[in-house]
């Protein structure tokens, strides 16, 4: 089974959102954007440990409009797909199939004004909650569904040692109980006897005995008559309680888990939690587990985040799923793209962008995931993006922006180098994330009079319309575009964010007088060998710049250093016009 959609209405930060999901969920977003609220929304439906008192929400939980609308209910609906391959899950969920698509089950939590309250809502007592399925209020969700399809929230990652240390809450408990039950009672008694012997030995040490007696006397003094018979022991000698003293040790038994680094204790906790889920399924107590981990980056250092979550996300167990909230690029970089949900705010309400339904092929998906992994998921956290064809643009655009008076880093605009001309998957991604973007590409005229750039941009635009579910373009306009020449076409698409260059980028640079000399200055200052120095001289004297050689030199300096050096001369580095407009396009939409 798979969570396929989450809808929230009128709840806390959320006015009305519908988020397509795809199994595992990685909720990304800034602090206070509402990641935990979204988790809590799911808990309202699925958490077996959440008491009814907590399901009875408060008026402050209504969406923060001015004034809040108490007449519209708070609604959380969770849709589940692919449940009928597992008969147990099918038996649990089949009553809750939706009338429009019987392959989907929907569970709904509703908090609303009671029917018998006449006037406006005054207190939370005027409201009630209901839980039902299939969009039909008469189909109540029995507690059994929550017990068997359960959510476990590991907010306690903050206190991994505490959880591991306390017998009641330790995930180790059930596993140990089961293991100990398989041991012959006679053998347990033996261990118990040996421990008793060790304890007796311990008590023969005068220092221990003195301490024990002193403590007992103190307790007795406080308690009055009732002697609780306090003793210093290794473990309780009652064989049945003995195993509760079993704990996890690390470093060959030298240290307790509580002395491990924060990260290791957390990894141990997650592993134990997963073992507990498997145990519950074996015992047929549960059929599906949803493990939620809040902001693991606070407690796991980056390498651990990478390795732990790569493993967790790769786990294809159909009976469990993972929900992670985070603002860690490290974690986002290894997350499966389709599991990513980005929470953003439009200043009044939080909205979500989900990549679950991103219309890309398996190959494109691979490309995107590699790109995100390599760039530490920069794109996911950007506020705007400029798509370019190659390394040169990637290196120089931030400098051009600076010369126009903008720091792309500070504004949160990333330059995305698609290494070629296949912009399509990347643009789909940006469109799905609702990121303002511009595309800078070449017109690439062909001998037969056509232009690759035209087709490229039209394909991208078709994708864009699909992803954003925008109204289709009239066939007449489309034909007009297909027939347009360079000027007509680039003018038309400039307003849509595509900026075309009728030559190639490198030639454009070298042909821009204001750029050529400052660039050559920086390069000459590098003290290259005689060949390169000769070339630079020739270029300065008016011989056309060789793009390949230019880029090789830039590569040797390093993009970062070149940017820094060029940036100092920013005043004089006005870029070619089409580039200036592409930068401005995104900057205007971000600020």
């Amino acid at each position, binding site marked *: 089974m798979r969570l396929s959609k989450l809808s929230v209405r009128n709840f806390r930060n959320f006015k009305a959102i519908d988020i397509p999901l795809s199994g595992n969920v990685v909720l990304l977003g800034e602090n206070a954007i509402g990641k935990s609220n979204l988790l809590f929304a799911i808990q309202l439906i699925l958490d077996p440990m959440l008491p009814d008192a907590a399901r009875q929400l408060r008026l402050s939980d209504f969406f923060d409009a001015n004034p809040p609308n108490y007449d519209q209910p708070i609604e959380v609906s969770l849709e589940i797909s692919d449940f009928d391959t597992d008969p147990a899950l099918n038996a649990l969920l089949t*009553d809750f199939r939706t009338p429009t698509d019987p392959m989907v089950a929907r569970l709904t939590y509703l908090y609303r004004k009671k029917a018998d309250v006449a006037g406006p809502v005054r207190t939370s007592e005027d409201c009630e909650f209901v839980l039902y399925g299939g969009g039909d209020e008469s189909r109540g969700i029995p507690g059994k569904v929550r017990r068997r399809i359960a959510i476990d929230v590991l907010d306690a990652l903050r206190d991994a040692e505490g959880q591991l240390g306390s017998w009641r809450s330790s995930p180790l408990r059930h596993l140990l109980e089961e293991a100990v039950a398989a041991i012959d009672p006679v053998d347990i008694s033996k261990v118990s006897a040996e421990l008793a012997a060790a304890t007796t030995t311990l008590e023969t040490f005068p220092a221990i005995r003195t301490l024990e007696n002193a403590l007992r006397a103190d307790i007795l003094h406080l308690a009055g008559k009732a002697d609780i018979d306090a003793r210093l022991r290794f473990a309780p000698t009652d064989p049945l309680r003995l195993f509760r003293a079993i704990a996890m040790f690390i470093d060959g038994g030298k240290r307790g888990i509580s002395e491990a680094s924060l990260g290791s204790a957390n990894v141990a906790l997650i592993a134990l939690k997963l073992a507990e889920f498997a145990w519950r399924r074996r015992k047929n107590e549960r059929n599906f587990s949803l493990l939620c981990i809040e902001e693991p980056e606070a407690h796991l250092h980056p390498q651990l985040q990478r390795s732990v979550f790569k493993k967790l996300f790769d786990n294809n167990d159909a009976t469990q799923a993972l929900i992670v909230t985070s603002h860690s690029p490290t974690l986002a970089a290894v997350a499966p793209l389709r599991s990513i949900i980005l929470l953003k705010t439009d200043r009044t309400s939080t909205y979500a962008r989900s990549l679950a339904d991103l219309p890309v092929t398996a190959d494109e998906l691979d490309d995107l995931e590699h790109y995100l992994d390599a760039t530490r998921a920069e794109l996911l956290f950007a506020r705007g993006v400029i798509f370019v064809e190659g390394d040169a643009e990637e290196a120089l655009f931030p400098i051009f922006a600076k010369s126009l008076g903008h720091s792309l880093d500070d504004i949160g605009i990333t330059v995305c180098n698609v290494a070629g001309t296949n912009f399509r998957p990347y643009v789909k991604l940006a469109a799905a994330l609702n990121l303002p973007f511009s595309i800078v590409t070449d017109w690439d005229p062909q001998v037969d009079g056509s232009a690759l750039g035209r087709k490229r941009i039209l394909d991208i635009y078709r994708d864009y319309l699909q992803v954003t579910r925008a109204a289709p373009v009239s066939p007449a306009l489309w034909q007009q575009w297909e027939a347009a020449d360079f000027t007509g076409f680039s003018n038309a698409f400039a307003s849509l964010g595509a900026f075309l260059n009728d030559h190639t980028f490198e030639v454009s640079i070298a042909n821009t007088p204001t750029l050529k000399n400052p660039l050559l200055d920086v390069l000459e200052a590098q003290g290259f060998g005689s060949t390169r120095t000769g070339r630079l001289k020739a270029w300065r004297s008016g011989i056309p710049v060789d793009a390949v050689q230019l880029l090789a030199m830039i590569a040797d300096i390093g993009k970062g250093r070149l940017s820094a050096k060029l940036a100092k001369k920013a005043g004089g580095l006005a870029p070619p016009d089409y580039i200036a407009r592409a930068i401005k396009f995104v900057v205007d939409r971000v600020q």
Partner: protein
Amino acid sequence: MAAIRELGHCVVLAGPGSGKTKTLTSAMVRALRDDVLDPRGVACITYSNECAIELETRLQTFGIAPGDRAFVGTVHGFALSQILMPYARCVPIGLPQNFRLATKTEISAAVVVAYNNAINGRDDPQDRWKFATTKRKRDVDRSRPEWYGTNVELAKFIEAYESELRRQGLIDYDDMPLMAFRMLKEHGWIREAIRARYPILFVDEYQDLGHALHELVLLLCFGSGMRLFAVGDVDQSIYGFAGANGDLLEGLTTRGDVRTIRLRFNYRSGAKIIRASLGALGEHRDYQGITGAPDGELSFFPVPYGLDYQAETIASSIVPRLLAKNFAPDEIAVLYRDRWQGDRVAEALKSANIPFVRTDPQALVRRNSRLSRLIEASARWVTGGWRDADPTYARLLSQAISLVFGRRISEPLEQQFSTNFMVFLGGSVGTNESTNAWLRRYSKELIEPWRATARNPEQDWDVCAEMIANTDPAVGLDLALRYFAGRIEGAGRVTLTTMHSAKGREFDAVIMYGVNAHDLPSRRDQQSPTALRDARRSFYVGVTRPRKELCLVYQEHHHSPWIAELAQKMNDV
């Protein structure tokens, strides 16, 4: 024993007194305990609500509450609550969300409309409809060529009738299994959902369940991997008039993928009665009693005159004689062919001051109506059951909820429902009301609001009004509530019932009333071979009810032809 451990499809052919229900119950309990893991469960289809209630009560003693993991109900109940109500809205079958069961008036009106549209002839539409009904029950799968092939006019008539009902958002009783069949056939995911919830399908009294159930079984068990466990006895098939057909059960036993188990021992009756019963059936069976069991007794009571005199003989001499032999009154039953014959026996017993209870369709508490049984159980609770939790309130509540809503409801709704129910029941504890007065309140305070909110399209709400009419004090029918609830001082009541309704029950002593030449078989029974066979099987059912004593009452020199065969077989050894 082998039967309850069987892991493939299994059919148990069980003669009278062979412990059929016990076998079925044990198999269900075992399946729920060992084979089928929570949250999956088992479904059991019975031929009547009465059987369902009996089975539920037995399961309850094993701690299995109905509704959760065990569905027990009729084929109509199964079709409605497990298929139509949950899934009709998901598929294009033409049912609105709030469909309901058509009334008799609506049905005859629809028949007329359909007749005019489809046939427009000169016969009485209702007469033609009787033929159509037979076809409708028999040709369950309409994608087969027989549907239009055998009688295209009737097929069109039926289709016109159904579309007329559908136009009004109505279904009739026969629609339930038919539509369920269609939905299952057309949508694999529904079959999958049923199998997910109930990997094993139990069927009780398979021979009485007709074509619709048989087709459902073929589809679910032999087409979609549900496991079948069916019990039945072809000899006790007495619902031929309702479309049941013992051959369907026989057919299952010849399949290669079905294991057939025959239960030959009769643990109920004495050997003499067993032998006599084969005479009553007129066919040979190798049933045996258990060794060492008493022989049982058969007595013949030839009476000089007709039915009235025979009833009087029962009241004045046979029942007192049985009581004198230390039979408990509630272990004595008087069986007859038709319910009007029951009226005569009732009258005679009344004037002789012998307490009795009727459990035939004329009964005050209709054993086949869940609502009727709930009202009776409510009376039991009010008159003392509250003290010793017999019945438990939880069971009353869950029965009421399933009557009104037909499925689980949300917790707040259940709370509110329970509060109203408890206010009435609690307020009735210690009441001095007569049955009639209490029933009137029950109707006003519970039935009316229930009816208004009911989501279960199947309910027979009118039974309460019927019960009120049947306890009318103006015609001397009212009785004390304690009596109605079956809590009477002394030793209990003699049971009066038809041979039909006696099916599945047993008594120490059974008096067969009116075994006369023209009553058994009656003229009507002799109209067709099927009717005659049904009548003879009814007689067989009656004869196989007693454990110790069978009394046959008939008119001297005018006895039923079947008595002679019976008397002859009785002494064969």
